[in-house]
């Protein structure tokens, strides 16, 4: 049915585009194949994706309507074939198909964007330090583009520019979506979820009552954001504030005999932070370097503690954690762009109050792996990219890693077959211990291809 609706929509958009120059549309059809390269080789995905976007200028550039829809079908997870995840497909599509639906109003210093959208804050690449307005879809870990990872939300995005090159942004987000992880049995199911599922299955005769406590769609349950942007001495900077519900649930389990009640709560937290970027344009040894950075202070971030040796959580604490990043970009020789990022996630790391757990049971834990979370996590990323044959071929190598001997190496090459047809070949190689973020997928290294036809 959805396919039929999409087809009809495509016909409608095409018709409108020809009928009215105020209307523009764009889209693509894409196939993504992923083949596991460790242990047993199997197709991790065979996704066909169609995306359509349309824009209608109601009143020149002052009032514009924009919508983007996306649908995909992953043949690798068809039921009775390679379905490792039961209701995988319907689970995936729930937050997926409507990517944008908003109305823009632009008049003088005012700019309003009202509707379903994404808002990206910060300067970090691939790390969400300030980029915390939208929840994230990690069903393919952090492998897709960020535009596909962020889950769009309904919001009022109000902007006012009191002077040139400055902007005050105020967000009211009455919508809530939880961040998504892959279901049990999928290639990128997080270790924490597998441990939890195994625990449920390991107790014969047990009954589990899992209660989701989503924040209500009320104004006082909304998320609020504020960003001030300005430029001083050739440096762009922002000051940011976010207040709302944490997009990952924290579980509290109450056991009564063989009955387990799991309450999944989305706790309130605050993000205070800022970002900057600067390109050194004046002559001197730094000319051509671009520096960028993010800083965030997470107030009341709900953080699991427990015993990582047995992968068991005993509760969560509300900590004040810090996350900062500095990045440098520079063209090193003709056409070769080098980017380097260094980030530190510094946890408050104090013992939780009002409990009787031993200190070894109060180790901060990575919510995705139930492994131990270092008090200070050092994260590095290096990316090098270039192009050949008049930008027809674009190779890129990225390597992200931490000080725990774990990481991901991702070489890829894009080849522009024609104006509308792009082919990508790449490899994601994961390494490290299973209790680490990338290491948990050390058996899911993947060779992938993408063939994208744009129109």
């Amino acid at each position, binding site marked *: 049915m959805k396919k039929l609706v999409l087809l009809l929509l495509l016909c409608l958009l095409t018709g409108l585009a020809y009928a009215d120059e105020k209307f523009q549309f764009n889209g693509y059809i894409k196939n993504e194949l992923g083949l596991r390269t460790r242990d047993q080789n199997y197709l991790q995905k065979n996704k066909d994706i169609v995306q359509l976007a349309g824009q209608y200028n109601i009143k020149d550039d002052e009032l514009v309507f924009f919508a983007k829809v996306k649908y995909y079908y992953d043949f690798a997870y068809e039921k009775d074939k390679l379905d490792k995840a039961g209701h995988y497909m319907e689970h995936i599509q729930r937050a997926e198909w409507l990517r944008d639906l908003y109305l823009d109003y632009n008049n003088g210093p005012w700019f309003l964007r009202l509707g379903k959208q994404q808002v990206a804050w910060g300067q970090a690449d691939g790390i969400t330090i300030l980029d915390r307005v939208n929840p994230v879809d990690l069903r393919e870990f952090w492998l897709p583009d960020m535009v596909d990872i962020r889950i769009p939300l309904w919001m009022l995005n109000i902007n006012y520019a009191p002077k040139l090159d400055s902007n005050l942004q105020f967000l009211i987000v009455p919508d809530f979506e939880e961040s998504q992880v892959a279901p049990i049995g999928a290639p990128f199911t997080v270790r924490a979820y597998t441990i939890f599922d195994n625990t449920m299955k390991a107790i014969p005769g047990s009954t589990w009552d899992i209660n989701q406590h989503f924040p209500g769609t009320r104004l006082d349950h909304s998320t609020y954001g504020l960003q001030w942007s300005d430029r001083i001495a050739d440096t762009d900077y922002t000051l940011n504030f976010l207040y709302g519900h944490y997009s990952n649930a924290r579980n509290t389990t109450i056991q009564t005999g063989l009955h387990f009640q799991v309450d999944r709560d989305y706790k309130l937290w605050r993000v205070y932070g800022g970002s900057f970027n600067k390109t050194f344009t004046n002559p001197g040894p730094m000319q051509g370097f671009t520096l960028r950075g993010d800083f965030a202070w997470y107030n009341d971030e709900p953080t699991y503690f427990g015993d990582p040796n047995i992968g068991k959580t005993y509760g969560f604490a509300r900590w004040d954690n810090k996350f900062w990043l500095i990045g440098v970009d520079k063209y090193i020789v003709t*056409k070769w762009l080098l980017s380097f990022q260094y980030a530190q996630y510094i946890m408050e790391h104090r013992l939780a109050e009002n409990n009787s757990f031993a200190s070894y049971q109060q180790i901060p834990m990575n919510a995705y792996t139930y492994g131990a979370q270092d008090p200070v996590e050092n994260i590095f990323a290096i990316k090098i990219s270039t192009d050949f044959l008049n930008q027809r071929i674009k190779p890129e190598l990225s390597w992200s890693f931490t000080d725990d001997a774990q990481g991901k190496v991702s070489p890829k090459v894009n080849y522009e077959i024609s104006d509308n047809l792009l082919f990508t070949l790449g490899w994601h190689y994961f390494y490290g211990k299973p209790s680490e973020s990338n290491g948990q997928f050390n058996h899911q290294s993947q060779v992938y291809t993408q063939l994208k036809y744009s129109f």
Partner: protein
Amino acid sequence: MKKLSVLLAAIVLIWDIGLAAELEYFQVYKPKDGMSVDEIMQIEYFVKYTKFAHDVNMGGKAYFIDKSGSTREKETARLRITLGRKSDDIAYKDLVIFTTPQVRGLGTLTWTYMDPKKQQDSWLWVPSLKKIRKISNANADDSFLGSDFTIDDILTRRFEDETYTLIGTENFKGYNCEYDKKTYFKDAPCFVIECKPKKSPWYYSKRILWVDKNTGGGIYEEMYDPLGRMFKTLFKDYEIIKVNGKDYPAQILLEGKDLRTGHRTVIINTDIKFDTGLSEDLFTERALTQTRW
């Protein structure tokens, strides 16, 4: 002797700065017989960077044609506002948004400064990230968006970057454009100027440039590598557009040929509109984030 050299260098520098300050923004200049070669080249750069106009709004199509004839196409919408503002040293700001399906929405905002030694500030709107990235300037000898023009050819080369020798004046033999098979500027009176880069070693040793007397535009140039071999030709078709009674020279068609690879790039500017009153608010990061695709 050393002191004399320093003094001479200082005089040359002051002279350069003096010349650079001579041309006032928002005026139309034409090269004339009897002008010095530096004056002619100042006008050529003035015309190239449309400093005569307050703003420009145009569409653009770029064709990338390899030796076998295989052609790729990119489309852009381009805006420029000329400021020539001493308070923050900004000469002009450019906004380029790609409208080709494959890269639709990709946009760059570039600020160019009046100080010739200062590099540009550039921001990139990346649709796949849905956010702005401040970007380092590519090297001047890098290809401009994969074309046969370099960043230097299109964006960064300034009057102060080269020394000039007037070879003579002549009626241009005409340029046979491979793209539309037309002959341009046949018998157009031109100044022929040798331009040598001050930077050494550099990817070219000299350019021989034909500057059209009617428009002030550098219509044709031959570029020579450090070994003195011609490796590239660049052609620019300038036409006069009447705006409020003034004759504005506008770049209509550009054709660049790499003689080593046989690759060609053709850029066609369409729907060129000058002085439409563009607001500087359009050339801000905030405006870039409003890109929807």
